[in-house]
């Protein structure tokens, strides 16, 4: 990780979540099912995968690159502010993967599974990344 990237996710950092285009409703709101933690039996990555804008930019990449890495025909990218996710009771941390820079985790601050109302509340504040509109 580059030295200028802090461990703590800054409040104004944009947090991206990949979602299938078919999971965006006609009014632009994503389905609540977009915001689930992974159900991995070993618990190693039992969280919701996200990407952080500061690391993406430092690596010279863009939201368009993120979308294209997963397939622009199938996926779109939803955007949040880190502070807004924390206000919803979410915890964020960095967890690098080889496929793309800026990968991280989003999980309930109390480590519980995200409930349906909590998923719905994330759906209501999620927006398709402006760069993709």
């Amino acid at each position: 990780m580059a030295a200028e990237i802090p461990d703590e996710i800054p409040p104004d950092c944009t947090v991206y979540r990949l979602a299938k285009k078919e999971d965006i409703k006609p009014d632009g709101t994503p389905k609540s099912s977009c915001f689930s933690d992974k159900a991995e039996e070993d618990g190693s990555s039992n969280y919701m995968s996200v990407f952080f804008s500061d690391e993406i930019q430092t690596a010279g990449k863009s939201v368009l690159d993120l979308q294209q890495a997963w397939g622009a025909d199938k996926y779109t990218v939803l955007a949040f502010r880190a502070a807004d996710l924390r206000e919803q009771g979410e915890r964020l941390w960095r967890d690098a993967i080889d496929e793309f820079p800026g990968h991280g985790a989003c999980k309930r601050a109390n480590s519980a599974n995200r409930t349906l109302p909590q998923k719905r509340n994330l759906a209501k504040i999620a927006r398709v990344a402006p760069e993709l509109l």
Partner: protein
Amino acid sequence: MTLAEFEGIAPNSTDVAIASANGSGTLLDPKQIRISRPGPDASVSTLLRPEQHPPAWVERLVREEIPAKDDYGLIKLETLVRFAQACSALPDRTPKPYYGVGDDATIGAEWDIGQFHVGIQVGNDPALDSIIFEVDRGEPEESDNVGILPALMLSILPD
């Protein structure tokens, strides 16, 4: 209107019987939906009560469309059956929901009907089963009694 108003009129889960059966996935008769997938548990039929006339979209949703969205094969057959049960008693004029399969092995379905939002979640872990009701994009109200879905829907659907 609150979810608590519907708790007393939801059908008991024992009203809906589940029977194992062999077969490749055919509609047995208008009151019975057979769900099947390859594997040792072959198939399960959800037997509907005589007065039930599920919306036309239920069968295809359960048999084809939800499994097609289950990219990682997470959803268990019994989870599909419980989801079918939740939808089978819906008023037949209920529109097809927006639906999805979550990475946490849950099936989600949701309806935006006028000022109302209704969502259900049925999971491999029944403890994750949930229904939410929301008015004017306010704070969602939640119950773990998914069986109240038909009565709730009946109360908000336009005539």
